[in-house]
C-alpha cells in the first residue's frame, strides 16, 4: 500500500459540497443538536456514509454524516447525524 493510499478516504465515504454541508448544519440546529460529550452546539460537517446498502437495520435512503464538535476541550468530539437523502443531498 502506498502513502497515497494511506491518506485516501475510505471508498464508502461521500464528500459533500458546500450547499449540502450548509443544509446539514441547519438541520443540526433545527433539531437542537448538542454534543453528547461537552454540550457544544457548533459542529464541523464532514463526509457522509451511505448506510442503506451496507447495514441491514437502516432505511434504504439513510446516510450518516460526520460531525466534529468545534469545542477545543471536548473529550469526545467525533459524532454524527443520521439523515435521509432528500434532506441534504437532493437538489
Amino acid at each position, binding site marked *: 500500500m502506498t502513502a497515497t493510499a494511506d491518506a485516501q478516504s475510505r471508498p*464508502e465515504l461521500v464528500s459533500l459540497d458546500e450547499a449540502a454541508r450548509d443544509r446539514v448544519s441547519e438541520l443540526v440546529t433545527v433539531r437542537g443538536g448538542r454534543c453528547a460529550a461537552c454540550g457544544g452546539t457548533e459542529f464541523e460537517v464532514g463526509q457522509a456514509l451511505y448506510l442503506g446498502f451496507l447495514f441491514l437495520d437502516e432505511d*434504504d435512503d439513510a446516510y450518516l454524516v460526520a460531525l466534529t464538535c468545534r469545542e477545543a476541550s471536548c473529550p469526545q468530539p467525533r459524532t454524527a447525524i443520521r439523515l435521509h437523502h432528500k434532506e441534504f443531498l437532493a437538489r
Partner: protein
Amino acid sequence: MTLDYPAWLRVDHWLNVLFLTLLLRSGIEILSTHPKLYRHEDSAPGTQWAKFTGKVMPKDKLYDTLDEEEDYHPIIALPGHAQLGIGRHWHFAAVIGWILVGSSYYILLFATGQWHRYWPYSWSIFPDAWNDIVTYLSFNLPPLLPGEPLDAIQKLTYAGVIFGLAPFQILTGAAQSPAIEARFPRYVRLFGGRQSARSLHFLGLAAFLVFIAIHLSMVVFWGWGRLTALMIFGSIRNTHWATALSLLIIMAVVTVHVAATVWSQRSPASVRRVLGAVISVPRKGLLRRLDSRQDYPRRALSAEHRVNGKPPTAENYKVMAVHNFVDWRLRVGGLVEQPVILDLAGLRALAEPQTQRVLHNCVQGWTSIGEWTGLPLGTLVDLVRPLPQARYICFMSMQDNSTDEPSAHGGGQFYEVLDLKLAHKPQMLLAYAMNGEPLPIKHGAPLRLRAETQVGFKMAKWINQIEFVDDYAQIGKGRGGWREDNVYYGMDGEI
C-alpha cells in the same frame, strides 16, 4: 489366472457401498450451502453455469453468501437442513474410510492378479462394448468376455470408475483444500482453477449417481440372486439366501445412514468431537505444514470480491466508520509481556506494509481473488511477546450475530481462535487495505485477518481486540470460534 470373487474383493465392495453413499449425501449437504457452480475464480453473482436454488438476491441491500444457503432434506443430504459443519465432518471422515478401502482394493487387486479383470487387452473391446450397449438397449444380455466375469462394456466401465472416476474425485476434492491451493496453486490450475475443480467434483458426483443407477439395473437384469451370490458367497449358489443377505446388507447401510442423520440432528457437538478426532489426523499431519505461496497477477483480481457476514450495526461502529476509524482502537493483551493499544496509524507504523494477491476460499465453496495489504501477524506477535504458556490467539470482532446476521445459525459476538504456531507462517496478515484502498466496510474495516492456508471463516473481520490465551475452552462454547460453536465447523481450517 482365475478372475473370481475373493473374500477381500467382496468385503471391499460392500464397504465401498457404505462409504460412497455417505460421501454422496454429505457432498450434497456441502453443495447446498452454496448451490451454484462456476467456471471462474471470482464466483461472480450471475455467472454460475448451474444452480440448484430458486432464491433471488436483492440488488439494493448488501447480501452475503449465508443468505444464499439452501436447506435440503435429509433424504438426499447428510445430515440435511443446512448443517454444513456436520456435513463437512461426515464428508471428510467418509473420504478417509473410502481412501483406506480403495487403497486396500488397489493393493490386493495388483498383488493377487485380479487387476486383469479390468485390463483391456485388445482394441476390439471398444466395438464389442458398443455392441453390448446396443444389445442392452434391445433388452437382451450380451455375452461375457471369454474366461472373464464381465462383458466388454462392464469391463470398460468398471475400469473407468475404479482407475479414473474414483481417483479423479479424490484429486478434485484435494484441489479444494485452501492449504493445498495456497501451497500448490499450479496443481489447482491443472483442473482449470479452483471453481473448475469444484464443478468437476460435482460432475464426478453426478457420474457416480449415474453409475450406481446403471449398476443396480445391471444386477437386476442379470439376476439379483446370481450376482449378489457372487458378491456374498464368491460363487453362484444359494441364490435365495444371497438375495436375503444382500437386502440385509443394504438395510444395514441404510441403518447407518439413518443413525448418522439422527445422531447429527440430535447431538451435533458429539458428531463434531468424534469425527473431528479422525479428521484432525491428516489435517494436522499433512496439511498444517503447508505454507501459502500465492502471488496472483494483478489482472486476476476479482472485480467484485464476494463477502460473507454483515457489518456491525452498532451505532458506535457506524460513527467510527464515518470518521474514517480515527477513534478505533485495537487492544492486544492476554498472556503477553507487553500488552498494547494501537490506533490505525500506530498499527500501520509498526512495519512496512506487506501485500499479497491471493485466492479467498470460503468454507461454502465460492472463491474470489483479492489484493490485501497490512501488517504481518508475526510482527505484532513479536511486539507483544507472548508468555510461554500462550498457545492460541483469539481475534474478537465488533460483529454481533444476534443483530447483524439474520442468516447465521446463532447469536453473540463473533470471534475466531488461531493456533499461535501459525502466526509466523507466510502470508499471515492483519489487513487494513484491499486492492489499494482502505479496507472496505463489508470486507471487515478497519482490520481483518488473512490466513491464506485456512478457509475463510477463520479470517475474523471488524477486529478490535486480540487476546493471547493458553486454552479456548472458556471462550464462547469452547470450540475455538463462533462458527465452531454454532455451525460445528472444525477448529482447524486447512480443508
